[in-house]
């Protein structure tokens, strides 16, 4: 109790609260710029925290972290471009909702879902950090590979109009992930002597090119609409703060399920928000009475994605606090920040620095509240984006994409890659390919390959995938997931008949 009170006192100082407030704003703004990730924002924050007290520094970084997960939804909802990889699924429903004239509701839904997702994950973090961390660390490469196989079956519900093209896009994503040095032995693959390809295709540049450039390009397809000065998003800009809060709370099952998915995925080292939002979305769609409306502006889709990705913030801290294993790049930076202050992160952290750990829990809760306040106060400003005409926003956001791609590695060659991927993304979009499975393939490919090969290096017996109980459970879930998806597609086909699939654009 003394440690808890000590942590509380350290967080509730005026200086810490002001820093955290600034951190929330910085996180939201950074993540709202396509290509500027939460990780980048936290990396830029790290040097600023060197002069602060350890808990103060960590609290500021947690504010950037929590704010960043929310900021990604702004460009996802208003522009259809995921500000961060963790808001890919948010684009599926928030963007159509904004497009049909409800941009305020789309943003408000996402913000409240993020808030509740973070709060739920903080509660789980406090209660379950030690046992969950012990469980996560017991998982071997067999379980991880089976988990990724299960995650890949999500593709089945993201395929869009055509199952074949969805599968093809997912496999192309996996293929893209094999370019560059192999993750186990470091052998060069498919680099064709091009230096840029030797380290593999930078994921973020691929993400920006596939989603942002292709989306922006498709905005100018209709010359009449562009030249008439039409705004990107039209309709009533009404944030509907309290009404939407009730709307989110009226979906307790979806909210809690998505948050738990986020916590569990966040607790697994190597996974994170980029997977959690898709898994949570998929689960919401599968359990919905009206799965057809997903992808067309269903509020459940926005709630699932945002609660899922925000809950990983708490989940990711579980292995970090319990065992000193960072679950994601952001957690690794948080760990580095603690180490800079001479605090060793490991199983003894909670014993030696209990005040710090409790302070982190409190900081998470305070950060989510600050994110909510900043969002509610500033969202009207962000909604101004919706009033900007297409002829202004298309070139400006393209330049932001260029900056985001360049700032990642300071390489001009990444810009050429951006252009190439952008053209490829638009071509695929015009041909009616669903782009989400492609991105999922790029994310999951290296994790799947690493764990498959690691498992067979540890023991050549492939039956271990089926005889280890947790691995078997994940594989059975994968089979059930595929069967469920096939049933859904057959059901959908029966009433509507054969899809003509006429339009390519």
């Amino acid at each position, binding site marked *: 109790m003394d440690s808890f009170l000590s942590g509380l006192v350290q967080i509730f100082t005026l200086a810490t609260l002001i820093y955290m407030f600034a951190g929330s704003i910085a996180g939201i703004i950074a993540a709202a710029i396509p290509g500027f990730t939460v990780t980048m924002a936290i990396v*830029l924050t790290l040097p600023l925290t060197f002069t602060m007290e350890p808990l103060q520094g960590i609290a500021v970084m947690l504010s950037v972290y929590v704010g960043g997960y929310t900021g990604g939804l702004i460009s996802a909802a208003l522009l259809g471009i995921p500000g961060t990889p963790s808001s890919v699924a948010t684009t599926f429903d928030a963007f159509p909702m904004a497009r049909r004239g409800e941009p305020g509701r789309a943003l408000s839904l996402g913000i409240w879902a993020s808030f509740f997702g973070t709060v739920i994950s903080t509660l789980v973090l406090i209660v379950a950090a030690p046992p969950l961390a012990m469980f996560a660390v017991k998982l071997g490469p067999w379980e991880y590979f089976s988990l990724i196989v299960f995650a890949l079956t999500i593709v089945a519900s993201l395929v869009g109009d055509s199952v*074949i*093209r969805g*599968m*093809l896009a997912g*496999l*192309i994503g*996996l*293929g893209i992930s*094999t370019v560059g040095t*192999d993750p*186990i*032995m470091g*052998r060069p*693959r*498919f680099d064709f002597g091009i230096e840029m390809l030797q380290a593999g295709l930078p994921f973020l540049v691929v993400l920006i090119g596939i989603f942002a450039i292709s989306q*922006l*390009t*498709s905005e*100018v*397809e209709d*010359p009449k609409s*562009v*030249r008439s*000065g039409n705004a990107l998003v039209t309709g009533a800009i009404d944030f509907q703060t309290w009404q939407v809060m009730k709307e989110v709370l009226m979906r307790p099952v979806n909210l809690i399920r998505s948050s738990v998915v986020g916590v569990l995925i966040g607790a697994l080292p190597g996974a994170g928000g980029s997977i959690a939002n898709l898994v949570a979305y998929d689960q919401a769609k599968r359990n919905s009475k009206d799965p057809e409306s997903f992808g067309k502006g269903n509020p459940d889709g926005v709630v699932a994605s945002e609660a899922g990705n925000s809950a990983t913030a708490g989940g990711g801290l579980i292995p970090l606090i319990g065992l000193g294993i960072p679950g994601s790049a952001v957690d690794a930076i948080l760990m580095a920040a603690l180490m800079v202050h001479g605090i060793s992160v490991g199983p003894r952290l909670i014993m030696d620095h209990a005040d710090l750990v409790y302070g982190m829990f409190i900081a998470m809760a305070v950060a989510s509240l600050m994110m909510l306040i900043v969002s509610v106060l500033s969202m009207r400003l962000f909604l101004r984006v919706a009033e900007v005409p297409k*002829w*202004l926003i*298309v*070139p*400006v956001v*393209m*330049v*932001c994409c*260029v*900056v985001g791609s*360049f*700032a990642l590695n*300071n390489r*001009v060659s990444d*810009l*050429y890659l951006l*252009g190439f991927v*952008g053209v490829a993304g638009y071509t*695929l979009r015009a*041909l*009616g*390919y669903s782009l989400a499975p492609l991105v999922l393939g790029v994310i999951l*490919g290296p994790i*799947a*390959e690493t764990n*498959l*090969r690691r498992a*067979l*290096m540890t023991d*050549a017996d492939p039956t271990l995938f089926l005889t280890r109980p947790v691995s078997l459970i994940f594989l059975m879930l994968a089979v059930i997931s595929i069967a469920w998806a096939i049933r859904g597609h057959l059901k959908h086909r029966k009433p509507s008949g054969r899809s003509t*699939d*006429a*339009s*390519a*654009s």
Partner: protein
Amino acid sequence: MSDAGYDKQQAGEAGEIARLLSYVLTLLASAGLFVSANAIPISRFEQLGAGAFPKIVFAGIALVALIAIVEALRKIPAGAYGRFARQTLAWAGRRYLVFVTLGALAVYLVLIPVLGFSIASFLFILGLELVLMPRRAATLLVAVIVAAVFSFGLNWLFAEGFTVFLPRGVF
């Protein structure tokens, strides 16, 4: 590939042919990459070599592409192939702004290392705005201000605020 004022069925058939071409290209590329994955040396320390996972993936791509080709061939009527070139040109004509935008982006990306981020971005934003904006005098001033802010201003912000230095060019 369907718009108002055009024969939707013919545009749809042309779209299906375009998709068929994409499946064929995907099949050829995956077959080629599958073969080149064979050339990746296998380590004696592991059961699966560096080429095993890519081979599984590219075999999967080839298989799905093959199924897609068969399905597409069943859908496309014989007469549609003769109309493909005309329909494609018509589609491209309707979306000429897409090609202008992508062309401008390509030129911009090539010019960044030469002119530097600020000048190249100013020219790109202003140029594209002039192409896309409604023809009104008042919008020109807005266009110039926005181009200046998001080129020179953005460069300044990243250099001074984040110590991220964007390309300066050769001049």
